[in-house]
Each structure stands twice: as C-alpha cells, then as structure tokens.
C-alpha cells in the first residue's frame, strides 16, 4: 500500500470514530448510554442493523464463496424478511411496552430469574466468541497479505472500537455505523466498477455474465429437498427464518439497535428496511465475487490466494513439488483463458452447437485447474498441520491489492475494517449491556446511582473488548470465516429462540420447564452437530422445536404441580 492508501485508510477509520465520540460527548445517564435516550431515527436504525450484521467477514468471505461456489449462498437470507415481519408484529411492541434494556429482561418478567440468566448466559458465550472472530477475520487476512504484524493489527483495530464504544455507548455505535455503512457501500460499488473496467476490452458485461452462467456460477436458487445440501431454497427459507428470528429478535447486539428507536414505528421501519434491502445487497456482494471469478478467467490467478502460506511451503521439503504444480496451473489457466475467450465469442454469435463445444472445453479446463488447486491444498496440508488449506477469504482482497489504483486500495481496506469495527462495536455494546443489566444490577449491587451504573457499563464494555481482543489473538482460521460465525450462531440461536417463542405463545409453560428444556435441547444440538451430517441452518429449527416441545411436555408432566415462579 502507498502513503496515499494509508492516509485514506487511517483518515476514514479514525475520522469516523472521532466524529462518533464528539457527537456523543454529552450522553447522559444509563438510559442514554444503553438505549441512546430512545432518540434514534429509523434511517439510522436501518443502517445500524445492517452494519451490525454485515461484518468484515461479509466482505471478505462472501465474494470468495461466490468465487468458489457461485451465488447459492444468498438463499441463506430467504427467511429473513418473514422473520423481521414476525418480530415487528410480536417482539417490538412487547419490548417497548415493557421498556426493557435487554431482551433477556423479558424472559425474567415472563418466567423467572434462572431462565433470564440462562438466556443471557447463552448470548454472552455465543456472542463473546463471535466478537473475537469478528476482529480476527480481517486482521489475519489483511496482515498476512500486507505483511503487517497480526497481533498489532488486532490490538489496534480492537482498541479503536473499544475507545469509541466505551466513550459514547449505544448512540456512538449507531452514529458511527451510519458513516461506516456509507463507506462500505461506496467501496463495494467502486470495487464492482473496477472489476468490470478491468475485464478484457473485447469482453462485454453481457458476455461476462454469459460466461459466468456457462461455468455454473449463476445458480441463485436451488429447490432441492436434500437435507445435506448446505444452501437450498428450503433450508434458507425455514432454517434462515429461525436463524433470523433468533438473531434479530433475541440477540442483544441487534435488539439494542432497534430499541434505541424514537418510537415503535422507528424501530419497525428500521428493521423492515433491512427486510427489503438485505437480500439484494447479499446478491450484489456475491455477484462481485462471481465477477472476480470471471476476471480471473482471463488473467492468471494465483494457484493459492494466501501468498503467506505459499511462502511457508517454499521453505519446506515440498517446495519443488509446489513449483511443479504452479507451472502446471499456469499452463492450464493459460489454455483456459483462450477457451473462455472463444466461449465468450461463441455466446455472442449464438450458434448452440458451437457454444456447447466451447463450453465443454472451457469447463473441462476449469476442472483441470480446480484439480491442480486441490493438489496444491493437499500439499499445503502435508507441508504443515497448522497451515490453512482454504483460501476463499483471500480472493477478493487479493484482487483489490493487485488491480486497484492507489487511494482506492486504502478505501477498500477501510471498507473491510469499517465493517469489522461496526459489528464489533454492536457486539461489545450488547455484551456490556447484558452483563450490566442482567447480571451486575441484579446480583452484585442494587440501588446504586445512575452514574455508577454508567461507569460499570463502561468498565464491562471495555472488559468484553479486552476479552474479544484476547480471543482474536489466540484464534485459528476456521474453515470459511462467515460460515464459522453462522455455524456458531445456529448451534445456540435455536434454543434461545425457543425460550422466547414459548414465552410469547405458550401461556401454560412456566420457567422451570423452559429452563430444563433449554439445557437439554442445547446439549442435544451440540451432540447432533458432532455426530450427524446435517446442514447447520437446520439446527436453528431443531433447537427451537426441541425447546418448545420439551417445555410443553415437561410442564404437562414433571412440573405439572409446580407453583408460580419468582418473576425477575
């Protein structure tokens, strides 16, 4: 990166953080610190909810996923619009009427203290781990490509987030997210324009689309009923519905965003904004990844996108074998480029039999290229057990660093870090709030002043920030990063959602029954995940269904004569 890139990067990230702190320098008591004085408008809520969900992982992993597997991942979000409608109808009016700070307060009011603690505890475990991954993801990718010190990158990015989140609370988080999201959207459109601009002159956008389709990268919807396929219309609609219901309805990092709204309408409209724009946005990000794939059909891509890993292999006994594979790859992708260019021409001409022959040749060469890449990954695995043999998270950023002009590289790296910071800020804000409201205020101290609670909230937020940075420092790259976060969420969210749905809709069930059911279902889900091959989205549905069914059965049998529990 050049000096100009560093100026753009630091100016963007530090500028937004400082502006957020300045705007919230006079935030008042606990209500202001944790709920932004209920003053946030729907537009800011909408962008804040979007920025919370869209972490750096979204912008690193998603294009890489499309590069490898095409557009099918967008189906993951198909349940989201219906989940948000459900939340607008049932959850938001209740949360706002009860004037709760956290969603788990509702569990306490509806059931009892232990159920509230369990819900809050599951959230803290799941979100605490995810916060570490959120910081780690961009740091590992960008530091390895730019030669930065990984630990220093993690600490600097984490510290910047902690400073403005601790300083300004919920309002600072929402205000900074508005500008971070603006930078992210501008950056992604710029990247897309640059990819299209970098295609060969004789390959039009329409030809690029046709080539991507011919290479099976544009299958957006898949109506297969195979439960082992990760992304289908049905798993996205039903599994995604439960994942989104739990994420937007019960995860404090999202609930806190819309509870800060100036009215029920502001909260609802901010969320519904996401119900409309999220799927097109994900489609666009995946589409950017597919266009990177098309771009690399005409340019020679690296045989493996994580250069740092290749450098390590080159120091081992497998170096010569790697060089051979790289030479073979260069030869295959060279032939592939010629075949794809011919395919693009033939697609323009429209002769079906000629197109079929060209496509067959291009696809065969693509298969050969994939086979070489598979050999490279196998060799990397042999060269070192600690070496990560997946490179999809490095695809998009490699393109940015190699093909974008000075200044824009800084902007796009800022996009990645802005996304990481916006998500982390929400997570830390929510972790601090939940620990404060659901544990500290109830267990440790009662009847203190507002200023005391604000101070403790700041300390807790900072402590969670420190813990997230610690996790990030000791994390290892796990499969595809965005999937790691979604898998982690899917294992916990179903049970939490089940507790809330029982609270809302099954009047006869009391706290002890739902508490025991939630623990049994959580253990069951963890065992199933470790023993069965089921698409992870289904665990949202399984966990939720188990809690609802078990709690009803237990209430009707074992706890039938149980008295009314203590409300919290």
């Amino acid at each position, binding site marked *: 990166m050049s000096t100009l890139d560093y100026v753009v990067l630091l100016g963007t990230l530090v500028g937004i953080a400082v502006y957020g702190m300045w705007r919230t320098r006079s935030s008042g008591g606990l209500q202001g610190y944790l709920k932004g004085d209920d003053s946030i408008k729907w537009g800011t809520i909408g962008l804040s909810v979007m920025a919370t969900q869209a972490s750096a992982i979204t912008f690193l992993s998603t294009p890489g996923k499309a590069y490898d597997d095409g557009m099918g991942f967008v189906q993951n979000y*198909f349940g989201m*619009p219906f989940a948000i409608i459900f939340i*607008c*109808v049932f959850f938001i009016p*209740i949360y706002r009427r009860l004037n709760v700070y956290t969603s788990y307060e509702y569990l306490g*009011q509806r059931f009892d203290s232990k159920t509230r603690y369990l819900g809050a505890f599951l959230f803290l475990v799941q979100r605490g781990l995810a916060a570490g991954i959120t910081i780690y993801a961009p740091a590992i990718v960008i530091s390895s490509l730019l030669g930065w010190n990984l630990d220093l990158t993690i600490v600097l990015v984490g510290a910047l987030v902690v400073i403005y989140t601790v300083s300004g609370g919920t309002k600072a988080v929402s205000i900074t997210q508005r500008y971070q999201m603006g930078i992210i959207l501008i950056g992604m459109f710029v990247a897309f324009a640059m990819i299209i601009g970098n295609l060969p002159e004789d390959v039009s956008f329409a030809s690029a*689309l046709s080539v991507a389709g011919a290479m099976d990268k544009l299958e957006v*919807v898949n109506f297969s009923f195979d439960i082992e396929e990760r992304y289908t219309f049905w798993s996205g609609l039903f599994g995604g519905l439960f994942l989104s219901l739990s994420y937007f309805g019960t995860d404090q990092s999202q609930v806190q965003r819309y509870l800060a709204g100036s009215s029920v309408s502001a909260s609802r409209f901010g969320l519904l904004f996401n119900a409309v724009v999220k799927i097109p946005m994900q489609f666009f990000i995946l589409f950017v990844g597919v266009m990177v794939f098309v771009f690399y059909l005409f340019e020679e891509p690296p045989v493996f996108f994580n250069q740092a890993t290749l450098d390590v292999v080159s120091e081992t006994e497998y170096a010569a074998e790697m060089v051979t594979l790289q030479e073979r790859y260069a030869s295959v992708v060279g032939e592939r480029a010629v075949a794809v260019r011919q395919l693009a021409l033939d697609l323009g001409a429209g002769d079906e039999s000629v197109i079929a022959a060209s496509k067959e040749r291009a696809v065969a060469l693509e298969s050969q290229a994939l086979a070489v890449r598979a050999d490279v990954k196998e060799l990397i695995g042999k060269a070192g057990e600690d070496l990560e043999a997946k490179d999809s998270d490095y695809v998009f950023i490699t393109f940015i660093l190699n093909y974008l002009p000075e200044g824009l590289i800084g902007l796009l790296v800022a996009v990645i870090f802005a996304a990481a910071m916006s998500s982390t800020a929400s997570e830390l804000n929510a972790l601090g709030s939940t620990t404060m409201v659901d544990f500290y205020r109830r267990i440790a101290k009662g009847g203190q002043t507002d200023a005391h609670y604000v101070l403790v909230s700041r300390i807790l937020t900072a402590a969670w920030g420190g813990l997230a940075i610690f996790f990030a420092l000791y994390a290892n790259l796990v499969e595809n990063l965005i999937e790691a976060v979604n898998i982690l969420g899917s294992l916990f969210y179903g049970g939490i959602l089940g507790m809330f749905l029982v609270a809302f809709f099954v009047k006869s069930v009391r706290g002890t029954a739902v508490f025991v059911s939630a623990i049994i279902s959580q253990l069951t889900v963890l065992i199933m995940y470790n023993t069965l091959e089921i698409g992870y989205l289904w665990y949202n549905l399984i966990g939720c269904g188990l809690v609802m069914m078990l709690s009803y059965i237990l209430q009707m049998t074992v706890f039938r004569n149980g008295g009314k529990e203590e409300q919290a």
Partner: protein
Amino acid sequence: MTELDKKKQEPENAPVFGSWRRVYWFVALFFVVEVIAFYLFTQYYS
C-alpha cells in the same frame, strides 16, 4: 399471546401504505418478486 404481552397496545400509524399490515404485505410480495427474478436469472444463465 400471554397476559404479560396483552397489557396495552400502542396506537401508531405506518409511515407509508396507510397501515402496517400493508407494509408487511409489501415486504412479503417484494420477496416473492425477488425469488421469481432469481429463478428466471438462474434459468436464463444455466
């Protein structure tokens, strides 16, 4: 809905389309249109 949830309903107007019910229908129909568009897109380029 449980008793705790039925205490009081806040009257409020949707900022567009006249009622929240219509806003929800709009979101649902928008999704259906999206899926149809994705399906046609998939078919066209497969």
